[in-house]
């Protein structure tokens, strides 16, 4: 996913170390960018449907950067 603040791409799983010791770690619905520390809500599963709908209507041939599926390394 892309950090909305610094626009760097990162994988959701790599954001976990920054959250260690957090009060609301269990069931937390937020993700923290490992680079700048910016926090954002975790993308819900239903966002995939919105993404697909958007792609069908506006971008038949290409997918915007944020909407691409993650293919990053661990």
């Amino acid at each position, binding site marked *: 996913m892309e950090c909305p603040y610094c626009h760097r791409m990162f994988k959701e799983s790599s954001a976990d*170390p920054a959250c260690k010791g957090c009060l609301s770690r269990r069931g937390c619905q937020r993700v923290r960018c490992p680079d700048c520390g910016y926090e954002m809500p975790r993308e819900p599963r239903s966002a995939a449907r919105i993404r697909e709908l958007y792609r069908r209507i506006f971008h038949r041939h290409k997918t915007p950067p944020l909407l691409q599926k993650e293919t990053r390394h661990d």
Partner: protein
Amino acid sequence: MVSIPFLTKLDAETASPPADKPPLVLLVGSPNVGKSALFNKLTGKYVTVSNYPGTTVELSNGHCHCGGKRLEIIDTPGMYSLVPITDEERVASDILFSGNVRAVVHVVDAKNLERMLGLTLQLIETGLPVILAVNMIDEARNLGIRIDTDHLSRELGIPVAATSSLSGEGVPDIIKHLATPPPPSMNLTRYGTIIEQAMMDISALLSPASPIAPRARAGLILQGDLREKERLVREKNDRDAADILNIVSTARDRLNHSPHYYVTLALRSHAARIASNCVASPAHKPGRIRAFLERLCTQPATGYPLVAVVLYFALYKFVGQFGAGTLVDLLEDGLFQGHLMPWMEKQAGLIPWPAFRDLLAGEYGIFTLGLRYAIAIILPIVGAFFLIFAILEDSGYLPRLALLVDRGFKRIGLNGRAVIPLVLGFGCDTMATLVTRTLETRRERIICTLLLALAIPCSAQLGVILGLLGQHPKALAAWAVVVLLLLLLAGSLAARILPGERPLFYMELPPLRLPSAGNVIIKTYTRMVWYFQEILPMFLLASFLIWLGNITGLFHLLLRGIAPVVRLLGLPDSSAVAFLFGFFRRDYGAAGLYDLAREGALTTHQLTVAAITLTLFLPCIAQFLVMQKERGTRVTLWISAGVLLTAFGTGFLSHFLLNLLGI
């Protein structure tokens, strides 16, 4: 994978580990560069994971055979620099300086090579054998980035391997280099006369038997690395340690900024020079319009007026007037009051038990209060805010705002980095308080926590206030001036009272871009879902607790306790409800204020005083708990007491002054 505490015997401070221990190979690098995947390629299946002694930081270790030798490979936690800030970086630096290190493999992201070479240069300076793994090379190629690894190797004076930890490309090259570790590189970064002289003087006093080169240690001491200072005091006698600290102090006095600043600049400039010779990226020259916009956002003469324009159109016009006005009217008057509420009251009338009837549709019922507040009043406001916020985020404006306010923030003990928690505070102060932990010093964290608790309203509170006071420009101006003045006053007072250094701020700016509609939709949608999942249940819980307090009499007891205080502010007793709601949740209090204003219970004067006092009022329960967790009980109690006194003191003064001014 098995999980056993393998590292309990590794004393990070010991320079000479047991002779039978296999030599260490450390994988180091920033988070998210593919270190762990490369580690798995090098070590195979049998990996041990355990916590580093005395910390919660996890480490993985495994073994690999190289040239007939068994090597222990450690996947260190992510680090950006040798001067550590986080626990992960401290652990990584401890392991790096532990001795018995055969080689350090610095794993970098080929797509962001330039920004990562700074750490490579620092590692080279340690005198340890360094191998550079330019990882994710396949992804870089797909983006059209070409890296001349042979040239890079000559420039740095160390072996370089282009790797892909997914496909395994380049991994045999790493193993080959590990078999015969390279000699230390002589390509050192130069930091300018004053720092170079100080490093030379300090190096002369340091023990040459240290696991890392004295020059690197001198650099860390000069940059204020506390761990290195501790090591220094432990290993040297008092006189030598005092001499070294004296050299540091003299160098600092001779420089305009801290040595850390100059070292970072020199490393960045060296890295940029090397990258420009070895990396060919697809041309991304900023156009003239983009360059103009860049200057417009970051130059104080144009940047601050632009902030005012953004605040006016984005917050006042869109969130305040459209969100809190038009949309709330549609939902509250049109849908809820016009259709849903009468229907619900009719349905609830069928319930024979009055207490349960009240729970659903009474004065403080789940439907009449909780659901109505959450959906008809707060949702349109935060929805409008989320949309505007997503546009600002996606355009890349926020980091430029951080750069712009950096100088001003230094006067209140913060720097541009504090824009992240403060901006997030407009979304939710509780979440933003958690984010203050990303600030560099404890002093900054306390000041930022204080400002969040005192003067940063959440989006719902802000929207309601803008919507209610928007029809009275003088009242709105009075509210804005008072809150802004208090923010500056509290910040500058805290900066004077709390001792500590002022850390520097530098960040890489992402390119400015036209916000993509797709990104904005997904970000807004994600936040709306978050609102429904996390905030809506809290509203329902709050209305349940209020109903419980109502039937037990506790609620009215609390209201009676607050009533004399609100009377002092010139407010009617009924406004005590908004303050009590505000302590449950800030946005709940804002919705309470909205209800009072709509019922005509407040004059413009009273509305202004209530808005000022509620904005500055105590943080909600959730924020209070997070503050206690993050800053400790003592600091939290001090902040809360200060905030409570300031809120009511300012409310009282505002009541008095606004009367005098005839507002």
